[in-house]
């Protein structure tokens, strides 16, 4: 195995574990109780999901209508399915299905 790749993987992997696990183990949220940090953390959830959605959809946006149409139908399918079912899983699958079907229909 490539030693440089292994070294990068171990360093990045150790940092990832520390970023993900240590704040949970230390219950960093308790340090924030009642203060500005608690309001910050409270808003981080919706902010994070909104950010990740924008980051995920941004590369798919295009001025070309044919390339944009599957994104529109997929997005509408998620909205419609969630409105009807209130299920995240169903809405996700409906969006992917509509997106794929539109790509197929457009050839």
């Amino acid at each position, binding site marked *: *195995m*490539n030693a*440089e*790749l*292994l*070294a*990068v*993987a171990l*360093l*990045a*992997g150790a*940092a*990832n574990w520390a*970023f*993900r*696990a240590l*704040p*949970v*183990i230390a219950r*960093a*949220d308790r340090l*924030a109780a009642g203060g*500005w940090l*608690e*309001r*910050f*953390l409270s*808003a*981080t*959830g*919706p*902010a*994070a*999901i*909104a*950010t*990740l*959605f*924008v*980051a*995920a959809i*941004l590369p798919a946006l295009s001025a070309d209508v044919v390339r944009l149409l*599957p*994104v529109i139908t*997929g997005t509408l*399918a998620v*909205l419609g399915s*969630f409105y009807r079912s*209130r299920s*995240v*899983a169903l*809405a*996700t699958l409906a*969006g*992917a*299905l509509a*997106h*794929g*079907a539109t*790509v197929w229909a457009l050839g």
Partner: protein
Amino acid sequence: MTDPPEPIRPPDLAQVGRDDRSRRPFPAGLAASLPIVMGYLPIAFSFGVAATRSGFSGIEAFALSLIVYAGASQFLALVLLASGAPVLVTAFTLIAMNLRHVLYGPTLMRQAGAAAATRHAWAWAWGLTDEVFGQALGELARGRRFSEPYMFGLGLGAYASWLAGTAAGALAGGGALEAWPAVSAGLGFMLPALFLALLLSMLGRRQVPVIAVAGAVTVAGTLALSAAGGILLGMLAGAVAGMVRR
């Protein structure tokens, strides 16, 4: 004196009763990972293909997924390593890209409540990727109870699919999904669809400014800096907006 913190959304009692009583936590977590699994498989597959095309072996591609387990930074690692970038520069670039994960644990545990167990967090929190965090937070926002077995199920499903997709991509090489463009496109839309559905599940009038600021800053940051920079700035700006708007 500050106002009491606002929960993301009041629990849907009908959903709480239906789900918590009828399903065990670990299988419920595994089941909840399905949309993530469907989204991860093609991305991990692409990573396996890209790694072998960059001259790395299948085992090296698998090792990156096993040890790093962070999609975008793994692709970046391929580019940097293949271009001969120094090990420390590559590693610190990858580390900086994933700095946002620091916020996920406290945000999740704040929503889980003070009594939530974290005895096995050293293991399940490894799986706290963007998508797993989003799915877990969405479940809590809909009034479901936090449990470590649920987190294990959710994280294990996602992690296993990431590893399986990487292995399949490294073995298959390029072109496996090229014959099925509609399937490839549909699978590629799975993660944006998941994030949108999660956003809808926690949407409330008081979250609108947070979401608007986060979205706008992400776009600006991505255009001005990079995708990773846009994500970090968007997340921080949205959280700050939530902090100062009261």
